[in-house]
């Protein structure tokens, strides 16, 4: 019996544990704490954080417990991540939630969503310079897209073994948008600029909203076919929403379906961060590059807005350029808050939504381009 006890004990976490598991469990707990106590993207940080706990319970191989053991439950659920199935489903739900009115009212603001994507490619160069493979560099660059599903999707296609660090980096920084962006916004804009009030957008007809997702989908995917899975679902979801007659499908897409996808995506991505595979120099580099790309993306958005003002008759408030990184809707909220600190009567939220959502389209296209150039 003592043998049996010993044998069993040698299979417990108390015997098998490794300092890296402990570190990761700590990080996971921090994620959960930030999600709950600080309300940073809780729908993402909490599942990922708890996933980190699950992934870092010290387990013995062979029984089929670990996410990297085929035939384990986690492995089956992780399949939706490695094959890039969850992200399009999440996009379907997002599409069924998103209202493109402001963007339709003032299409020019789309350019801000484009500008912020420069962060992606600059980070890509940075990653190459730090010695990453081209495909890995592309995946790392996409962190600057500030769009979790897009990042996971591209990484799953280009550099599967980096899914953990890149997803975690992307979501952490998206969660930290309220911390990262304001200083940059302050730095790159004058008070005068921050005080600019934008004119009311024109009223958009139901028909425009109805036609937009179809046109947007066809145009963007003709240009970047590899953006199909993401943009296709995003626009499909939006059609379901705007059609009204398909409301029940839109309803399911924006509730059960996206929630289920989010839960499974979050917990498995978290569980994929097993200490031994996650805590590596490369991960550190990825985090540094990720932070960089967020700052650069924000900066590009802001600066491009200032450039646009040189040409536009009715000036725009350059702050909304920062919303071009996507990170919907947090970065738009941040813009709003920063704007109000200067002038409480200035409501930028609605205006910031335009670059915000076009940032999503922008990074999906960027992902498509990178995928087709690297894939």
């Amino acid at each position, binding site marked *: 019996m003592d043998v049996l006890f010993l044998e069993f004990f040698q299979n417990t976490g108390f015997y098998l544990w490794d300092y890296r598991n402990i570190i990761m469990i700590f990080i996971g707990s921090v994620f959960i704490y930030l999600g709950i106590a600080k309300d940073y993207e809780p729908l993402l940080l909490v599942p990922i954080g708890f996933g980190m706990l699950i992934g870092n319970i010290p387990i013995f191989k062979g029984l089929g417990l670990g996410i990297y053991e085929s035939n384990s439950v986690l492995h089956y659920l992780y399949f939706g991540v490695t094959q890039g199935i969850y992200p399009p489903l999440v996009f379907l739900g997002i599409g069924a939630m998103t209202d493109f009115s402001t*963007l*339709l009212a003032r*299409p*020019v603001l*789309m*350019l801000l*969503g*484009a*500008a912020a*994507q*420069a962060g*992606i*490619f*600059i980070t*890509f*160069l940075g990653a*190459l*310079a*730090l*010695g990453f493979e*081209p495909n890995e*560099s592309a995946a790392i660059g996409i962190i600057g897209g500030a769009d979790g599903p897009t990042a996971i999707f591209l990484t799953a296609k280009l550099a599967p073994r980096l899914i953990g660090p890149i997803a975690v980096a992307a979501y952490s920084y998206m969660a930290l948008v309220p911390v990262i962006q304001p200083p940059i916004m302050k730095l790159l804009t004058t008070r005068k600029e921050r005080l600019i009030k934008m004119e009311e957008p024109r009223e958009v*007809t*139901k*028909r*425009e909203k*109805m*036609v*937009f997702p179809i*046109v*947007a989908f066809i*145009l*963007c995917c003709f*240009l*970047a076919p590899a953006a199909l899975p993401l943009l296709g679902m995003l626009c499909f979801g939006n059609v379901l929403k705007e*059609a*009204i*007659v398909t*409301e029940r499908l839109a309803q399911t897409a924006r509730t059960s379906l996206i929630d289920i996808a989010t839960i499974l995506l979050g917990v498995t991505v978290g569980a994929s961060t097993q200490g031994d595979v996650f805590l590596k120099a490369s991960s550190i580099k990825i985090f540094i590059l990720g932070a960089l790309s967020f700052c650069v993306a924000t900066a590009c958005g802001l600066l491009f807005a200032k450039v646009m003002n040189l040409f536009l008759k009715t000036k725009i408030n350059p702050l909304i350029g920062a919303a071009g990184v996507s990170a919907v809707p947090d970065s738009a909220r941040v813009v709003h808050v920063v704007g109000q600190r200067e002038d409480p009567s200035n409501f930028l939220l609605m205006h910031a939504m335009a670059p915000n959502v*076009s940032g999503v*389209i*922008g990074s999906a*296209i*960027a992902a498509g*381009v*990178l995928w087709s*150039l690297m894939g």
Partner: protein
Amino acid sequence: MYGFSAINASNGWAISVVGISIVFSGLVMLSLVISQLYKILGFWSNLSEIKIRKKFKRRKRTQANNLPFLTENQKEISRQLLLIAQITGNQFSIERLMHLAQISDVQEPKQHIDYLLETKIIISDGLGQFAWDKEKFDSAIQSK
């Protein structure tokens, strides 16, 4: 390999330039199309407007041309109803309008639609199809 050498080796500069320019051209293209879309759709709906007007003309003649009065609330709701009505082209059946109005929870659609019928802002072609008399509606909206 590190630094610039690495970037050059994997043709990084070119890729970045291509990449960002694709993204830009994509969104520029889209924003241009949208800005036109606005007009196209407008033009289209005017076109059908005219068809409709022809079709409904003889009926309209018979109408007294006094302007119906709308309260602020009625104006608001009617605007919503008009938006909904237009989803389905310029002609629509009342049942359908009701149905859609309910889904997109407009308040008391029945009552408002009846009023719009009564005031001939929604006009019938006598064959179960209805249309919106925009002229009349707009003037009714403007009127204080």
